[in-house]
């Protein structure tokens, strides 16, 4: 049920994001709503449940790019696993801290996408990471809005123990 809900929300956000980008213009960086969802899952979902949901979220992102290669499916699961490790070190219980967490996840996701993409595509290597800062900022803003929504829909449960680095 939660997986289905995750997929529905992902599709909805991806559809809305693509329309938003259309009105703002192609030149602007995208908003990585899927990374925000994966970051949320890494904080609150169980390992298997979260990994499967992240796989599905990544698959949908890959599908929506128009030229699915499996890159974003892989990266969603990797980001989820890295997020789980990071999530054990920090305590994320507010929209603001979640936005920072999602921004860190987006940086990781963007660097991995660029790094892996550069191996197979010269153009991607040349395109660089100039759009990443704006993309991370927009993702952070979107995460502020998404956090209460995702919490309300109950994707994953509240973690009992605070993170290792929390005061």
């Amino acid at each position, binding site marked *: 049920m939660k997986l289905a809900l995750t997929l529905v929300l992902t599709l909805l956000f991806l559809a809305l994001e693509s329309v938003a*980008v*259309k009105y703002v213009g192609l030149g602007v960086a995208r908003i990585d709503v*899927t990374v925000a969802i994966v970051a949320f899952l890494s904080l609150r979902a169980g390992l298997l449940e979260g990994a499967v949901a992240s796989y599905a979220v990544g698959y949908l*992102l890959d*599908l*929506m790019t128009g*030229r699915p290669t499996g890159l974003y499916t892989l990266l969603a699961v990797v980001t989820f696993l890295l997020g789980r490790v990071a999530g054990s070190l920090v305590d994320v219980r507010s929209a603001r801290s979640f936005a920072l967490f999602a921004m860190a996840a987006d940086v990781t996701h963007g660097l991995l996408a660029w790094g892996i993409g550069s191996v197979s595509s010269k153009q991607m290597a040349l395109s660089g990471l100039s759009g990443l800062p704006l*993309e991370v900022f927009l993702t952070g803003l979107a995460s502020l809005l998404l956090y209460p929504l995702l919490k309300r829909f109950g994707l994953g449960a509240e973690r009992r123990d605070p993170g290792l680095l929390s005061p």
Partner: protein
Amino acid sequence: MFLGSSRSVREPNLVDRIALAVTAPVQRAAVATIDGTANAWHQYVSLRNVRRENVVLEEENSKLRADVVGLAEARAENERLRRLVHYDEISPGPKVVARVLGINPDPNRLTLRIDRGEGDGVKRGQAVVTADGVVGQVLRATASASDVLVVFDPNCRLGGRIQRTRSRVGVSGAGDEQALKLEYLLRTEDLEEGDLVVTSGTDGVYPPGLVVGRVTGVQRQTSGMFLNAGILPAVNFTRVEEVVVLAPQPAGSFPTRTDGQGRR
């Protein structure tokens, strides 16, 4: 030769089709909502201006202004559609007029989503244009929507021709909506800033004669075979609203070396 980069795109499976079928109506609804809200806002602003100017004629003026807004929009749309009609001469056969729904979420794979799909006769590989020129080619079609790879995607290639000199050139995307790359033109060839680049029809996707853009930034190196230049696309991609999907190009309809109108 199929110069587009759709070679690595797999056909959408059942799950893909369902997911894409679900998102298209959401995008349509979002576009309709935003456009409707914008129109309502413009009419509201017009109404307020009229009130300030003349309280007595408020009602009559507001109606007239709303009509003018509507007519101007209709006239602009008419003008765009009228300019699209000339593609009948370039590419005879059925065409599909489509509306841009959205832009897909990966900045490294530049594709647009349009609201026409297989159900409307759109198929992978068809050329997509506006009245201004080339937009791209259909990369993937589902029942009710399709994805279009835009020409400035770094993986996009097409065959072009300098209109003035008839020299054939390659055109590739540079990942920037303001610039395409002009390739494979010999250093000794005649090329000037502002030369118009049109499709050559040799790539099997685009019929000959479609406007691609104007030459910019010509650099003649002292070594090497080819010169470097860019192309400013004729289409303003941030303002694309309607596009025309041209009929597939029949096999053998492209110029061959023997009927060439020029040389490389």
